[in-house]
């Protein structure tokens, strides 16, 4: 019996993936509780730094979900997400982090079933892989002010 349950951050685009997750909810599909969905407007907002930030703060995996190529509400945001994702994968390889920990999926607004399927699959994969072995002593939340450079205070 393993006490380890993977923690996954989901970065879902508002128009397709988040809507699909809502659809999965409306349809009462049951899936693993390991993913916590954070909503952004477009998968183009996805910044590879988010992945490292998530890992630093205890995530074992990150799932980015956006519209299918050609369907982006903002025309091309998902293509940019794809480009960044590809570069990120190379960086992960160099750092010795398993590629399966970061996943990019295209989920359209009517694909509630796919949301369930992807989350269940990813959870299972991460259970097998085990926890991410980059530990960080938990810091006080005040430290968040150092993220992203000085902003208007």
């Amino acid at each position, binding site marked *: 019996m393993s006490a380890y349950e993977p*923690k996954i*951050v989901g*970065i879902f685009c*508002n*128009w*397709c993936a*988040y*809507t699909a*997750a*809502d659809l*999965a*909810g*409306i349809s*009462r599909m*049951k*899936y693993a*509780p390991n993913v*916590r*969905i*954070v*909503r*952004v*407007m*477009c998968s*183009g*907002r*996805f*910044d590879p*730094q*988010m992945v490292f*930030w*998530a890992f630093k*703060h*205890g*995530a074992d995996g990150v799932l980015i979900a956006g519209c299918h190529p*050609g*369907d982006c*509400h*903002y*025309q*091309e*945001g998902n293509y*940019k997400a794809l480009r*960044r994702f590809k570069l990120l994968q190379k960086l992960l390889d160099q750092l010795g982090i398993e590629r399966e920990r970061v996943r990019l999926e295209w989920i*359209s*607004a*009517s*694909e509630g079933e796919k949301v*369930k399927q992807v989350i269940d699959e990813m959870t299972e994969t991460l259970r097998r892989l085990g926890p991410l072995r980059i530990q960080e002593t938990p810091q006080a*939340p*005040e430290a*968040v*002010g150092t*993220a*992203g*450079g*000085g*902003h*208007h*205070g």
Partner: protein
Amino acid sequence: MKGNGEVPRIGVYVCDCGTNIAGKVRVPEVVEYAKNLPGVVVAREYKYMCSDPGQDLIKRDIQEYGLNRIVVASCSPLLHEHTFRKATAEGGLNPYLVHHVNIREDVSWVHDDEEEATRKAKAIVHGAVLRVAWQKPLEPQSVPVRESALVVGGGIAGITAALTLAEAGKHVYLVEREPTIGGHMAKFDKTFPTLDCAACILTPKMTAVKDHPNITLLTYSEVEEVDGYVGNFKVKVRKKPRYVHEDRCVGCLECIEACVFKEPRFPNEFDLGLSKRKPVYIPFPQAVPPVVTIDPETCLYLRLGKCKKTCVEACGDRNAIDFDMQPETLELEVGTIILATGFKTFDPHRTPKYGYGKYPEVYTSLEIERLVNSSGPTGGEVVMRNGQKPKRVGIIHCVGSRDKNTNPWCSKVCCMYSLKLAHLIHERSGAEVYNFYIDMRTPGKGYEEFYNRLAKEGVHLIRGRVAEVTDAPLHPEEEGKLIIRVEDTNIGVVRRIPVDMVVLAVGLEPQPDAEDVRRLFNISCSNEGWFLERHPKLAPVETFTDGVFVAGACQGPKDIPETVAQAQAAAANALALMDKGSVLIEPNVAQVDEELCSGCHICIGLCPYGAISFNEEKKVAEVNEALCKGCGTCTAACPSGALSQNLFSDHEVFSEIMGVLL
């Protein structure tokens, strides 16, 4: 915790949503947990946060506790984000200082384990609390809404929507790709359940469209490009050349009479190929606009450059024919758009077991509509291709519907129209009619009564899915006939029923170019290919793109009453926008911190809307907020963190990520 200079005073509201959330998530525990989060001044549980008393809680607490940030954990923000923003605003706080997170669709409805669900709900609330501290007050932009609308598709849906809008005083551009409006309904003979003549109820509306001063009718035209956003759409429409001036042609049809082709030779599309036409033609006598069209694929002059042009001669002084016509591109500016592009019928070549295309006397229901129509190819007589009248007709339901091999959905109208055709065929020709169905679906007003009437008229109703239509006889009475092999499930016997004519009740499908059309208008399609509505129950005519609405069969199979209702609903939605005169644009636009910007130009090429430009004087990037749509891709790319997206800044998103990982 720093939060834009203010010390955050956060109110957290966790909703029970009846038992929808409370049944799986231990809400009181989440509330207790929230009370101890940094910045939280008050945390409450309530049964229905979206209700008036629920909203009042927020408003009162803002006043009483001097709250400056609000977190609501309930259903999906796609449903109620605006509700809580409004409540917050009414409480005296800027509406963009609230963060609404989802613990219903994303938690209580999808997880079985109470422990896990509660833990996840806490994590989500934690993320929200950390994030909301970083939110800033914002003002949404107001953009004007033009008082003109574009309606795409001139069938009964488009016609209804256009007339409704025009009557309300708005200008409407009605674009239709065929040379005439009328759509599929113009092809029908009678409509169920009243057996009203379709043309009689449709043509007055078509004429009304033509005559209405507020409607610009653009037939034989297609939308090529759409730009802009709600209230301010810029649409390019391409008018195909008919080689006839619409304002000069009086519809006398002398040119058709005079055409060098003495006999019509080319398949008449309106009659589905059952009759022929000449290169110069009018789709049907009551076409709107009542002008002829010349088909460049078959006209001798347009194809080969050689012809006596007797048509021009016959036209005489009116001089309506112009072989030099070019396609025209019009640029329209409209405030709202309604898509009413209709459907196509299933092509039964895909179910070869029914013999369509192989046996000449197998027809689609649409072809039969033309046959029984008095203005159709046989003057309303039920006459087969072999020139004879059928003595026995079989109508097969669910061709291309309710079928895993072709289309899984039920096309909704086929049972009713099959019964209608059974009645019309029997009435016109005295033939014996058999209807082969899986289930008899007659749910509308007067529909069940229609079915009973047909049953009394003596139609044979056989419950069984037809296995095949074949011409190979086994018994003498089957010679020369088409044999329908079916299991009559009500009596448990496999039957062979010889008939003269087979009618396939073909199902409804999305138009073949629905995917292309929806991309033009930036909306989505469902898995089956129908245009996607914002919500199947509560927003059936809105789409996820503000200002674009759908009506009629393009959104899913439906009958005429439903289509008309949807068209009026879409028009009402469009009117609401146009009458309001302005619409608020979400303020989640990007902004540049000039001190941090190094002028690297990375963001400028990334913006799909060209909203970012380079200020040559200051040597920094500049965002045109009117053009920015708020996708955030520039924010993600900026290496110096100079670009920030309102509501989705790095601070906001990153702190939410950290928070959900408790």
